């Protein structure tokens, strides 16, 4: 119904074609349904499952997956073989030489092209790989477990890898020199995740188990620029906190996931307390958006996905066994995707195909596709049509009441 209205408005000139397109996209993104496209599973009983995944950001084609046994795999999402599996481009099995000893905690494509990627694990190593040959190129040995790492997506003047260490430091590794340049200290307890600002290349945000979210400028020697204040203590408490020089907490529970919006203006944090918060990145103020309570049991790092440049921007938030689709600026819950049977580790949004990929503890990898209308049922505008598209499936999904039950 929304789309029809929008079309009408475009015709009247009330809506720019740009906006129309993004709103249509948003509508589509809100209508994800499960598809049968999945990853290639060679063995009958899978020995490993995906623990982290990343989609390269040049043409959103290659999906990089880190696996629980330390192995890696790259899939081409544009090629769908036999109607249900993605073509595998390259893979390296866990346990082979050069792979991680433990499960892969984080993987990331080199932001500029798909000629390099980095992986990290709890075996204290960050490895740089060449995807074309599936060979190890370089590795950094850290002195602590690694929870997360990231490279700046917009960096032009540096190629620094920010590594979130278990010992409470953010370690900056320069890919050019192959050494760690310096460390950002300040977190009490392990650092859980790091994110570079997609707007300014020197700004880095890190979250720790100490429930703080801090923003750093890597050029300065300052401790940190600011810490997000969730403002849990009001009145006299905040005064006391100031006196004690305590760093304000962003959440009541630890932060399990955080993410910049695509334009870098906003920051979304998701705490273990089940609260999703939106922050203004320039001021550090919390925006007053009510997202409603979400329940979460996992303390693991989750990967949430945001849609880039849509009219109502959406966030795909893994929340236990479901993935919630929420409008970022209004807090409206648009869709709930339930298909996983155990905790969802992360969601990935593919802007080109508009598919959503989710992976979780239940060893399933699910591709969610937006609902595409065929021309003839466009008029029906029935959002709740059943899944009966294919004749083959139709046959299976029929009722089969036997005649004697009349």
């Amino acid at each position: 119904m929304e789309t029809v209205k929008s079309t009408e408005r475009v015709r009247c000139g009330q809506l720019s074609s740009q906006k129309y397109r993004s709103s249509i996209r948003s509508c589509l993104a809100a209508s994800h349904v499960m598809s049968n496209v999945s990853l290639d599973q060679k063995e009958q009983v899978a020995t490993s499952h995906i623990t982290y995944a990343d989609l390269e950001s040049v043409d959103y084609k290659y999906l990089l997956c880190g696996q629980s046994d330390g192995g890696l795999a790259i899939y081409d999402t544009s090629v769908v073989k036999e109607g249900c599996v993605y073509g595998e481009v390259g893979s390296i099995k866990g346990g082979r030489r050069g792979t991680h000893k433990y499960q892969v905690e984080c993987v990331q494509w080199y932001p500029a092209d798909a000629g390099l990627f980095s992986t990290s694990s709890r075996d204290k190593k960050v490895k740089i790989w060449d995807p074309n040959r599936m060979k190890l190129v370089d590795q950094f040995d850290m002195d602590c477990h690694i929870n997360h790492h990231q490279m700046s997506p917009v960096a032009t003047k540096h190629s620094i890898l920010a590594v979130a260490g278990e010992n409470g430091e953010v370690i900056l590794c320069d890919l050019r020199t192959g050494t760690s340049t310096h460390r950002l200290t300040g977190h009490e307890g392990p650092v859980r995740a790091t994110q570079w600002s997609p707007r300014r290349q020197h700004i880095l945000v890190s979250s720790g188990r100490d429930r703080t979210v801090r923003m750093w400028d890597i050029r300065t020697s300052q401790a940190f620029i600011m810490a997000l204040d969730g403002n849990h203590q009001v009145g006299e408490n905040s005064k006391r906190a100031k006196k004690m020089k305590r760093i304000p907490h962003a959440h009541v529970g630890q932060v399990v996931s955080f993410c910049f919006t695509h334009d870098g203006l906003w920051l979304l944090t998701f705490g273990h307390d089940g609260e999703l918060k939106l922050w203004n990145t320039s001021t550090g103020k919390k925006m007053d958006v009510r997202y409603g309570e979400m329940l979460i049991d996992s303390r693991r790092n989750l990967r949430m996905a945001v849609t880039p440049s849509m009219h109502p921007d959406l966030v795909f938030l893994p929340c236990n066994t479901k993935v919630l689709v929420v409008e970022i600026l209004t807090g409206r819950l648009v869709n709930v995707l339930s298909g996983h049977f155990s905790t969802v580790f992360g969601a990935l949004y593919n802007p080109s195909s508009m598919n959503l990929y989710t992976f979780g503890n239940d060893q399933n990898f699910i591709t969610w596709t937006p609902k595409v209308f065929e021309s003839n049922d466009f008029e029906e505008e029935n959002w709740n049509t059943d899944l009966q598209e294919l004749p083959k499936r139709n046959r299976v999904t029929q009722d089969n009441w036997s005649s004697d039950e009349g």
Partner: protein
Amino acid sequence: MDGDRQAAHLKYLVEKLTTSGKDHLDEEKFKKIKKICKRSDIYIVELYRLVTKQLEKKHAEIRFSAFQICDELFRRSHCFRELLLKDFLQFVDLALGLDPKRPLPKPDAVARKLKQKCVEAIQYWYDHFSDGYLTLKRAYNYLRDCKKVDFAELTARTEAERQRAEEERRRVEEIRNKKIEKVKKELEISSQEIDACIAQFHNCFKLLIPDLHDFFIPLSNEAASPEEELVLDNENDIQGEDSDVSNEELEENAEYGSEFMRGHGIMKGTNVKINLEDVRKVQKTEDNEVVIENLKECVSVLKIKLLPSVRKWEEKIQPYSEGNESLIKTIIDHKISIQNCVKKFESLNIVHKENQTVAKDIDSDSDEDDFIEVPWDDPRVVSAAASEAALLGMTETSSHHAASAESDDPGNQPSSSGLSHKSSHVLQSVGNSSSKESEQVRFPDEYVSKNASTPRRHQNPLAGLSQVWTATPDLHDQEEIQSTGGILGIATERVNYERTWEPVKWACRAPLKRGRLCPRQDRERCPLHGPIIPRGETGEPLLPEDAAREQAAREQYEIDHPAWQEPQLLAELKAATGVDLKVEKNRYKRKRKYENLTDLKKITPKERLAKQIFNPKAVRRLNAALAKEHKVGNLLAARQQDTPPGPHPPAAHNSHIPLDT
């Protein structure tokens, strides 16, 4: 309107089906459900709601039935499949109980079945519908990969359960091997002993009673047998030694007029009586004494030591029979041979020869301490003499002796004074027939019926005789009677508990409804009207306190049973108005809602006993007792070790009992 009615009916049907507690769904009711559901998907949604509600109940039988409904409908309705797959995880949780925090409810047997059936059903669903339902496919993979549901074996076990089962299996295997090894070792050690013992026994036995086959060779030579006294004058006796050989056989052999018969001078129609019982009678003589002793020893070793141990092995090895047939066979062979030996020995009747005692007398003349100097006044001697005399018909002397004994010490009545009762005339009158007398005295009823009301001590003068070997022909053996009579006199003591019965002379006399008085005659308490109290002409209590009590009881009864609760009145009311006003007697005992289901709260006898046995107090008590016994046992064992080995076998035996238990 119709829809509502159908929905209500559906609800009723689902409830009835799920609370039936049966293994299978009731065909008729389920057909009705299907009929309703077929009409429209609305009913399926409703049914799904109902079924899930039942599935959540904490009772395995309800869940099982609900699951069966789910399964049936899943195979039929697309809508139902969609609904179920939406909440598939929850369904699996409830039906498979994979979550260790939320296991399947009791009863366990049904829960196991539910699990099994559920796995089967999911496999079936996957095989048939997975192409159409992605969720099902993924769920199947999830269950297979993450939850380790083994669809090949159709078992759903958690990892922990699997490990536990494996460990348990290994443990049992180990125990079993250990036990078998132990038994084997023991068997090896003692099999030689057993064989030796059995061989010894057989040899001894052969010496005493030669084998049948050995006997046939010296057929006419009767002197070959050592016990010529008891062997009668023909071979039949020897034939009878083995009971399976019958006389007819012999008769066939020895036709009338044959050489054999003529040789023995047996006429036609002569019946030869064969006393088969005597065949295994062995007279103990000086010659075979050693052999008999040896035989006895052998048997006791076999019986006391070896047979129980063999039995123990058999018991131990019984549960692990497969794979150890040879071992079991050896054990059983041993057992049978030992048992045969024991049986053989028991069938033997060893008779002491009379002159044996005489011989002993001569032998033991040198050591005087075998015989205790018995004074003539000793009551035992008196009684023995008396009984002896009675047997011999020397009544006069006996009575005389008895009288004298009585007069000597009346207060200290010796327990053995068999003739202490005054009615000695009985004895005198039947003096000549001692057996008759003895019968008379032995018969208890007769004794009680006598006017003798005072409790008396009594001794059967003939009691000593039963002690004597029955076959001993000489009853006058002095020593024999003398030694046994005294002991027996102590052993048999008679106490009379007789009391006179007084008839009840009063009645309850409580007033009845019909106006009569209660005619029951009880001694202290009427079962209907309580304690018996003095009452007046009309049945009212005479004493004021009794009257007050009765009044109070009546009032209480009135409160408990109001007048309008009269059954007749109620029945009339019910007939007239259709309302049952009857007040339930046990208001607190609520009727169970669904009788067909297994009651989970019901306490089984086992649980009740377990509660008693394993209650902490009892366990503590038991432990204390065990510790104490253990201590004593240790002490005894220590003492046993100090003393030189051998002389105290009973002590050693005692010390082992608490340790074993």
